[in-house]
């Protein structure tokens, strides 16, 4: 019998629909896989004890002839940044240890309605602040390709879970690359939708104007299938877009036929020189572009002169918004409370926040408080918002002449745990390629482009499209994916080391 955990969500869904496999069987296979490998990986902070019941309910409804969604019965891992009523939601922080939300995030509610089976909550950098998942208050997640390396961040848990076949689908959130960069270092697929394309309601806010929830999967079609479930207008989120979206899964299936590459204009940013990238990353990127060119795509050099200010603007806007968003963790209504004998409520708040937040969170709150405080606003926050305008203009100009922009998804392959933890600025520079999309609100996808020759670790290629053109990313991503799969003779993840034998 096939290993159900190796199937894509689309393939598993076919077997569920045909009745060849039950959701209980599929769910049990993934729970068994989690039991076998998560001790090494630590991708999950919580594994649901209701998953089999939920799966059984789906099977019952299917037997009863109920019309179910196209991926009903498929297991789903949920990043812990999303609140859930049946599992704790901590956002990777001790300050929310054991927190139970009275309501589900909209994306979670839609996933349940679509018949997906929540397996558990995945690990992440505390409040999504980080690029390595080392800043989780519950300990790091490890990269399935090399357990001594980081799985990326902040959504390292979701990416590792998918890469290690613990789940076919996962939800992530991307504020500056937290879906795409983990996809890059784990050989998986991740897409950050157009800002407003997916509801933020119930996503514990990091930076409200940058955050976006999106799919984390092993294939482009699977990402489209999950995106189809979570997309669409939500009246609970004022920034949610009202338009109807096309089927992203259909877009991916169409793209996989390859015609989209004929005449496709792919922009390459001249200000992102190879020098800033690990050589294996550059090489993989170039060869992916060459493959596209061979199928009729045209590579066009474009200029995005303000992208180099993106990291600086991002590390002003994010901490500023985060310092305000994280003020609610004050010991009064929920979460940790540290007793201060004889202290006032102010003392209790300050002691709780000191003890409950990790170093990176405190660092960014203090930085954001600074950027907003009297006398500094214009120079910092105000200027950063202007850089945002300039980056949007760069995008507008670029998209006037190209269909998509391509970049390596991140400068390096997975670095070693602990390698950058004491150098916050180095860690921040890791997001250089992913940040502009968040600042401008445009969608971005990362798909595997190969392995770096020097370390054998996965590399991702990122495509960016104009706002609202998420479907274009699915078409282009699926086209390249099909091309590379052909060249490789199978999925990249087939070359990942076998896990489960202990370390």
């Amino acid at each position, binding site marked *: 019998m096939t290993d159900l955990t190796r199937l894509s969500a689309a393939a598993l869904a076919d077997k569920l629909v045909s009745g060849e496999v039950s959701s209980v069987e599929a769910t049990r296979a993934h729970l068994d896989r989690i039991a076998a490998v998560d001790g090494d990986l630590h991708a999950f902070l919580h594994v649901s004890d209701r998953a089999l019941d939920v799966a059984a309910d789906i099977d019952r409804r299917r037997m009863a002839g109920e019309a179910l969604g196209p991926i009903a019965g498929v297991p789903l891992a949920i990043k812990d940044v999303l609140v859930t009523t049946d599992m704790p939601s901590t956002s990777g922080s001790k300050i929310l240890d054991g*927190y139970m939300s*009275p309501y589900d995030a909209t994306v979670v509610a839609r996933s349940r309605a679509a018949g997906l089976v929540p397996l558990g909550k995945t690990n992440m950098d505390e409040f999504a602040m980080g690029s390595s998942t080392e800043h989780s208050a519950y300990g790091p997640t490890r990269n399935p390709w090399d357990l001594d390396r980081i799985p990326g961040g902040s959504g390292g848990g979701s990416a590792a879970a998918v890469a290690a076949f613990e789940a076919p689908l996962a939800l992530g959130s991307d504020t500056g690359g937290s879906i795409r960069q983990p996809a890059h270092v784990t050989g998986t697929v991740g897409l950050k939708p*157009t*800002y*407003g394309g997916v509801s933020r309601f119930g996503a514990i806010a990091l930076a409200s*104007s940058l955050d976006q929830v999106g799919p984390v999967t092993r294939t482009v079609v699977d990402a489209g299938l999950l995106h189809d479930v979570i997309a669409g207008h939500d009246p*609970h989120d*004022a*920034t949610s*877009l009202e338009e109807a979206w096309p089927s992203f899964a259909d877009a991916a299936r169409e793209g996989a036929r390859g015609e989209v590459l004929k005449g496709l204009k792919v922009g390459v940013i001249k200000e992102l020189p190879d020098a800033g990238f690990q050589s294996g990353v550059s090489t993989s990127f170039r060869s992916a572009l060459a493959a596209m060119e061979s199928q009729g795509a045209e590579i066009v050099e474009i200029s995005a002169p*303000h992208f180099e*200010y993106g*990291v*600086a*603007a991002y*590390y*002003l806007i994010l901490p500023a918004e985060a*310092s305000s968003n994280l*003020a609610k963790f*004050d010991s*009064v*209504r929920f*979460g*940790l*409370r540290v007793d*201060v004998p004889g202290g*006032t*409520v*102010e*003392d*209790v*708040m*300050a002691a709780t*926040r*000191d003890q409950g*937040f990790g170093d990176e969170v*405190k*660092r960014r*709150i*203090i930085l954001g*408080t*600074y950027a907003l*405080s009297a006398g500094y606003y214009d*120079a*910092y926050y*105000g*200027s*950063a*918002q*202007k*850089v*945002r*305008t*300039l980056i*949007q203009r760069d995008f507008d100009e670029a998209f006037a002449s190209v269909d998509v922009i391509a970049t390596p998804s991140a400068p390096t392959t997975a670095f070693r745990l602990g390698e950058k933890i004491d150098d*916050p*600025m180095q860690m921040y520079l890791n997001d250089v390629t992913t940040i502009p999309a968040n600042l*401008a*609100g445009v969608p971005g996808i990362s798909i595997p482009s190969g392995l770096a020759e020097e370390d054998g670790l996965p590399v991702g290629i990122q495509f960016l499209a104009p*706002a609202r053109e998420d479907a274009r990313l699915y078409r282009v991503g699926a086209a390249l994916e099909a091309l590379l799969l052909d060249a490789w003779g199978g999925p990249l993840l087939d070359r990942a080391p076998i896990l489960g034998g202990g370390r």
Partner: protein
Amino acid sequence: MSEITPDLVRHLGVLARIQLSEEEVERLTGQLDVIVDNIAKVSEVATPDVVATSHPIPLQNVFRPDVVGDQLTPEQVLQNAPDSADGRFRVTAILGEEQ
């Protein structure tokens, strides 16, 4: 380069309600100094003629009809309360005054 001093960090800790230890103040002062030097470059291109962007996708007039909904039960309101009494959240003494 930048003006980050231990006193400023201490003050920011008060504003942000984080009881920083002296060791933390010292470490943060050094780190923030490096970070601020790096990010201050935004002002190089943020000239007066450039308008600020608060929202990546410009929308306006997004309103909700005045219809009751989304109300939590009192049990849900208090379900995570560190301390409560008489259906309300309980906190230790407050110094100062209402705003």
